[in-house]
């Protein structure tokens, strides 16, 4: 869902990413026929992935985040194919085995949706999974310095 890291501030902790809504996708064929609109659940998933990447960076890829709860989600306007989303994730709390973040999406400088996201965080099931996810994170521009030191 997300294309590249625009800004990462681990001391805040906050991340800003960019995500381009594709101009065509099987998702749009049914949602809606003749009037393609990004489904709201995918907007939430975009925010969850952004916050998840921040969690991975904060833990130096020691923990894998799983979305557990979505609260106070508001979709202020529809998002359409071809639009570019600026997605922000701000960690509000890092608990023991969980995090709470605020996600926001802006299009054209205007906020289009937000939600509070709770993630459970758990150890990676095995090193290969972590390596795969580190590879994906590197592709979207996450700095190598936040990756785990393990090979």
């Amino acid at each position, binding site marked *: 869902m997300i294309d590249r890291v625009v800004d990462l501030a681990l001391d805040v902790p906050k991340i800003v990413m960019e995500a381009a809504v594709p101009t065509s996708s099987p998702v749009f064929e049914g949602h809606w026929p003749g009037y393609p609109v990004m489904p709201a659940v995918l907007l939430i998933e975009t925010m969850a992935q952004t916050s998840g990447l921040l969690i991975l960076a904060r833990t130096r890829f020691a923990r894998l985040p799983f979305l*557990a*709860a979505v609260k106070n989600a508001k979709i202020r306007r529809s998002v359409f194919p071809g639009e570019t989303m600026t997605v922000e994730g701000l960690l509000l*709390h*890092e*608990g*023991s*085995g*969980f995090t*709470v973040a605020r996600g926001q999406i802006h299009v054209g400088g205007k906020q289009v949706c937000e939600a509070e996201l*709770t993630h*459970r965080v758990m150890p990676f099931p095995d090193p290969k999974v972590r390596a795969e996810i580190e590879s994906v994170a590197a592709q979207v521009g996450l700095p190598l310095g936040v990756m785990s030191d393990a090979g």
Partner: protein
Amino acid sequence: MSSTFDTVADIIAETCDIPREDIKPESHAINDLEIDSLDFLDIAFAIDKAFGIKLPLEQWTQEVNDGKATTDQYFVLSNLCARIDELIAAKRA
């Protein structure tokens, strides 16, 4: 000034929509109040913020799973409040 128990009970009542009068010091969060693990994350978040601490949920869960502790030790509310007070004291030390 509210006691630790009053604060925790208020949090549980609001977070889980449980009548405040049903929440007692001897109540077990899971067995009596039927709070599931996801709702307990909400409670932990609120407790962490209210007291400026970090409940070591992972450690407690591991101890219970390893047979080194019972759920009563951490989830009976009077015991939970005692753990909270210990964490507050440790933070101030």
